[in-house]
């Protein structure tokens, strides 16, 4: 069953990433250089939609809280984020979109994947250094306390309510964000 779900959800994810322009470094670069935030609007709306559905579903008892998987927060998350951000901006690819872009026929994405395999291998070798420096220590923490989950919480608030409110906020920001902040022109109509 898991195998079938991996194929169905994975294929859906890859197809949608391609259709929103995330496999195209031009759209990534326009977003990150703040020339055109259309893709940012898409991503924020996606996070908001997923959050509202998940936390709303949890409140109605339709979504299993046990399927959540919150990652640990530690200093290395921020340092790693900085590194990923720099490489993401330069190449126009992140791990998922790089693999998808290569599948759409982009040759530069094959070089990204090769570099990525080498970078991951370099981390596998240098991992003890980061661990020894204590930069990987932390706890899996959510903003509010999510009922039925064991995560630490930052605020003394109900986590599912926080998630629902933030989800709506993400959707509002997605709608409010201008597509082309530098020129003030509207986004061209969709071609689909």
């Amino acid at each position: 069953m898991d195998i079938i779900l991996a194929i169905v959800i994975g294929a859906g994810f890859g197809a949608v990433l391609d259709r929103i322009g995330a496999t195209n470094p031009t759209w990534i670069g326009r977003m990150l250089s703040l020339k055109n935030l259309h893709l940012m609007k898409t991503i924020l709306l996606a996070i908001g939609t997923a959050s509202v559905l998940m936390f709303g579903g949890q409140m109605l008892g339709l979504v299993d809280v046990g399927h959540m998987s919150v990652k640990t927060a530690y200093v290395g998350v921020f340092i790693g984020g900085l590194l990923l951000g720099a490489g993401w901006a330069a190449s126009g690819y992140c791990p998922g979109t790089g693999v998808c872009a290569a599948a759409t026929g982009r040759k530069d994405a094959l070089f990204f994947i090769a570099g990525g395999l080498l970078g991951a291998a370099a981390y596998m070798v240098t991992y003890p250094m980061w661990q020894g420096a204590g930069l990987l220590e932390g706890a899996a923490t959510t903003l509010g306390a999510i009922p039925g989950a064991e995560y630490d919480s930052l605020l003394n608030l109900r986590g599912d309510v926080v998630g629902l409110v933030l989800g709506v906020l993400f959707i509002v920001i997605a709608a409010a964000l201008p597509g082309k902040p530098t020129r003030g022109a509207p986004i061209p109509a969709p071609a689909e």
Partner: protein
Amino acid sequence: MPLNWKSGGVLLGLVFFLAVLLVKPIGVSTQFVILDGIIGDAVNPALVTQAEDGAWTSTNDYLAKSGGKYAKSVANPLNYSFLFVLAMAAGAFASALARGGNGAAENRAPALWRANFGDGAGKRFLVAFLGGFVVLYGARLAGGCTSGHMMSGMMQTAVSGYVFAAGAFLAAVPVALMIYKQEG
């Protein structure tokens, strides 16, 4: 032209919701480690080994961490997360096929690159390679990437997701502004 942000955002959000409803949150970058492990284990079979009690471990500390869960995935590549990434590539391939592909020039170097640096592909391939190295090193240090930390993390109100997104955009925006002066 990509999908409008409204339909694209709802579709992408549905995929992330379905993943957490039916299985677990989406993540990709770990599978670069698993593929490295598979290649490494093919070259040197002593890399990943199974103890008598059935537990998997590795001579590499990173593959052996957390009770050898990565070592186990290396030994059994037909697991959910690895197949997910292969299926993701297949989905993107089918989508590109259905829209008629990217075109030969785009496949060598994207329009934004060509507008800033011309048609030569060699420099683009080098930047993509170096970018890939830094992205995956950073993703493994962070314990996740754009999908696992930023999208899956922030949708779950994970503090780590917000910390990661702050770091990623703090570096990405200045670098993009420096490199890509022309819009493309």
